[in-house]
């Protein structure tokens, strides 16, 4: 038992240890900002795509109607 105790590493000196400061408020703000930026980018992407597709549908419809076979 004494032999085991003698081979154990000495206790670490934790007096110099400092907990790494993690700014909780900044993490919170970044989390909510990321979500809202993602949502707005996603909706803007959909809106742009919808506008482009609507233009394309109208152009294609005009071509189909304009060149209708007798």
């Amino acid at each position, binding site marked *: 038992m004494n032999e085991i105790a003698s081979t154990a590493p000495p206790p670490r000196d934790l007096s110099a240890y400092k907990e790494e400061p993690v700014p909780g408020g900044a*993490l919170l703000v970044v989390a909510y900002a990321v979500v809202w930026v*993602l*949502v707005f980018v*996603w*909706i803007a992407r959909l809106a742009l795509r919808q506008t482009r*597709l609507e233009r394309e549908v109208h152009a*294609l419809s005009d071509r*189909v109607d304009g060149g209708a076979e007798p």
Partner: protein
Amino acid sequence: MTGAVTHSRTPTTLLAAVAGVTALWLAALYAIVLVAQPDAILGIVQKVFYVHVAAAFAMLICLSAGSVASLVDLLQPNDRIDAAARALVDTGVLFALAVLTTGPLWARKSWGMWWTWEPRLTLTLLVLLIAVGVLAVRTLAPPGPAGRRVGAALATLAAPTAYLIHVAVQRWGGTHPQVIQGGGIQSPGMRLAFWVTVAAMLGLAAVVTTLRYRVARLEDAVVALRLDLSARDLRRARTAAREPVS
């Protein structure tokens, strides 16, 4: 014109839904900031929990519903169900990205690390990769039944993975806390903030899915119109080839 439907104007019901979701989000932000107390141990960063878990709910519902819609479309092809499946998977990707960005921000403070390969995190990354794979197949494959079937078959994997995400902590442990499944939120203020945020997030998911569904139907309309034009050009070319040269 083809069977695909085009939407040139935003319907009143959708505008009403947007107004409702905006009101819900204002209520949710009020509850998060002013009603819910900061956590005694984690401090203010615990408030990431509300948006993170609500986004996870939206992700699981969208991807599971998209998976089921894809299975139905595989068994009985239907353009509307296919468009709904694409819309749900696309929206699921949005909320998976929200989950996988807010989670590490909370984990950094709570666990002391940005990421760990524990079961729930790994499965969430896997379901995101499945959903991105579905979107890649549908975007890159030429219009037609082959790409549609491959995309739908891949999407059916999302529902079982979503179920495994739901049960991951009970089955395999890991570092994720069990707040909702492990007894619920005790503080009334926190409970109010949580459920209002869940309602707002699900409302937002419904609105985004509806917008994406309209885009999917327009994509179908464009493909159908292009096919119509190609078929007409082919018929004209054949007629011209049969006519005698004068």
